[in-house]
């Protein structure tokens, strides 16, 4: 198990009943970002899965952050979680 903090923002927190920050214990076999995303879908999100995922990855329009960095800078789905990491999923906004 690895304990990390999940953050949801930009409206995505609605998928978790409005909760923006959730500490979670992720099973060792889900320690990569790719597997974490599937684990979140199956464990934490009870409906509207299409607001979170598309084709086994995060849907377009969601910014994924690993400790305040764009996950593109950290290996995207290959990144291996460290204890204490903060992982954020922020919906891109378009309003003005």
């Amino acid at each position, binding site marked *: 198990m690895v304990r990390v903090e999940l953050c949801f*923002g*930009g*409206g995505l927190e609605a998928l978790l009943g409005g909760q*923006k920050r959730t500490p979670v214990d992720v099973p060792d076999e889900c320690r990569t970002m790719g597997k974490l995303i599937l684990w979140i879908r199956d464990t934490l999100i009870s409906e509207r899965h*299409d*607001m979170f995922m*598309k084709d086994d990855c995060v*849907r*377009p*329009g*969601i*910014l994924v*952050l690993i400790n*305040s*960095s*764009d996950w*593109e*800078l950290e290996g995207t789905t290959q990144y291996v979680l460290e204890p204490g990491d903060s992982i*954020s999923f*922020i*919906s*891109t*906004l*378009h*309003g*003005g």
Partner: protein
Amino acid sequence: MEQPQQETVERYSRQMVLGCFGVESQRCLSRARVLVVGAGGLGCPAAMYLAGAGVGALCLLDRHGDCVERSNLHRQIAYNDAVVGVDKAEALAQFVRNLNPRCDVQRLDSKQHGVGICAANAEQMVQGFDVVLDCTDNVMSRYVLSDACALQKVPLVSGAAIGTDGQLSVYCSSGAKDDDTPCYRCVHPVAPPQHCVGSCDSAGVLGPVPGIIGTLQAIEAIKVICGASFVGAEPLRRKMLLFDAMDCSFRTMKLRARNSACIACSSNSTSTQNRITRVNEYDYDAFLMGDSAGDSAAAAPAI
């Protein structure tokens, strides 16, 4: 009688006395041409503070025929009941002209009458500006504007707000060799599904939230315009600011660098003509429709 120049010095004196800013930065502002696209909750404070700060020319563009509605008034503070029904960009232009008569304020009309910025005219629209502000409210405009700015190498200060959340970043390289600023498309290579896109009109927005982001857009535009004259100032390049009004928290995230394969901003100079052709022939409708072909919203002119 007061001389025009004395009047100008007095107007900007509290900025010019600021050591890191000074007379040189004020001169940069006075020579700058700025395009603000969108005259809503973001565009109002952005245009007001840019005119106040003394930019030389301010062009305003909104969807043609988009008029002030009473439901705009809680957040679009340049308007009031007297201008309900008036063309938005025109009403905003009138306000900022009064705010600073020294600023040359134009309501930019698209080449194709009756249409706002769209794929066919965007590149010409942004040409010649020192900086463009994306204060729009829809996905298509954001891609069209960014693609045009990427091709023309015009920095783009992009803001967005909805509900109690806001986002801000500076996109598009100015063309300097070592500038690895991504364009909007580098960071968002695939458009979001339409059912995941909210708007202030449908989802609601707390009035002052776009006020924060629009005012920050004015600050970022000033920093982009002044460059090294504004000593120590660093525009928000390769960074995105995330604002949550619920607990007044701000986070800064590090963004990826420019994508060397990006169809809009790739630095591969041999393919410049290719890039332009590819972007000009780009099918925005198909791109945006993605998973929901048949929805006609994306076919309407963007702004």
